[in-house]
């Protein structure tokens, strides 16, 4: 049951992130703007390529070379994906401040360095077998990018809520900030729990991950879907709620 929950939660997150990522990259091709390119590519790389490649790779015990290659590809997708999300956080929420550039650079350069360290050091076969090695450090980058994105979105949402009460904000955009904060927050929580368990020596089996990947994956996927591809009923509900509060 828990393995099924992990599969459903992880699968939902991968599917929605891929669909939203493709949509945002397509938007970027029309708008020529960096935010949609950064976040669209980030979602596609991390969830559309990285997560599935890692999942399949870890199952291929009988083909160690293919396993190592898939895990390495997953890692590389993670390097570029996390950097894309960090660039989005910086350019959207703190474009005129210096420290976000430094954080973004540290995430990109740090991830790339750890990827190379794993590859030229213990190797990707070793990581695929044991899930231990320099690449384990990369999850810190995930902690930073996702918690940063969640924090900034929720902070800006609290500002827009005040503006909405004065008629100075769009209800759908306000709700979108809230939902994106939730999506990133759930993704961060899932990664953080996995990181703490792994550091405690717990083996990440489906039985273990099903406890949190399932519910958090579904919550993140649902929030992302409602943020970027909301059904008409949801849109009408948001608008009606804003009208009722006016």
């Amino acid at each position, binding site marked *: 049951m828990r393995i099924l929950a992990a599969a459903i939660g992880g699968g939902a997150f991968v599917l929605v992130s891929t669909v939203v990522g493709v949509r945002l990259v397509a938007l970027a091709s029309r708008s020529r703007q960096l935010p*949609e390119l950064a976040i669209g590519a980030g979602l596609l790389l991390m969830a559309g390529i990285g997560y599935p490649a890692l999942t399949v790779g870890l199952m291929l015990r009988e083909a160690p070379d293919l396993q190592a290659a898939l895990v390495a590809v997953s890692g590389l997708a993670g390097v570029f994906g996390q950097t894309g999300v960090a660039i989005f956080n910086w350019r959207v929420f703190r474009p005129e401040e210096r420290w976000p550039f430094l954080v973004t650079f540290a995430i990109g350069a740090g991830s790339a360095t750890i990827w190379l360290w794993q590859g030229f050091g213990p190797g990707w076969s070793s990581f695929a077998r044991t899930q231990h090695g320099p690449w384990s450090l990369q999850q810190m980058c995930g902690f930073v990018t996702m918690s940063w994105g969640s924090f900034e979105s929720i902070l800006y949402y609290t500002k827009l809520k005040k*503006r909405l009460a004065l008629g100075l904000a769009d209800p759908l955009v306000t709700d979108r900030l809230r939902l994106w904060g939730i999506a990133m927050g759930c993704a961060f929580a899932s990664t953080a729990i996995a990181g703490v368990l792994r550091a405690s020596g717990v083996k990440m089996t489906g039985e273990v991950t099903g406890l949190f990947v399932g519910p958090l994956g579904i919550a993140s996927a649902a929030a992302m879907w409602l943020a970027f591809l909301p059904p008409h009923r949801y849109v009408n509900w948001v608008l009606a709620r804003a009208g009722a509060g006016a």
Partner: protein
Amino acid sequence: MAESAFEFVCAEIEQATSLNALEARGTVRLALKSAGVDARSVSAAQLKVILDKLIPSELKKRGCEDADNLCKQIATRMAGRSFEAAGAESPEAVFARLGGS
């Protein structure tokens, strides 16, 4: 260089009341904070609404008589001027585009 809408409103309040520059700016900043808006990025259109709905009560707390009329006059004078545009695109504008709004 064009002044910002925030600077204009602060200067007008300072001239028309007994508040000094620091007090005038602080009063407006408090109103902006209640509205969820930053002084660096507030637009003239947003300030017009805040002048109508929030700043009068802040001025009354500071002993300003006829705060409602003063704010109406400032809003009228604002309408005839152009102000410097905000710098970077706001997160609100980005998220509006991401959702196709």
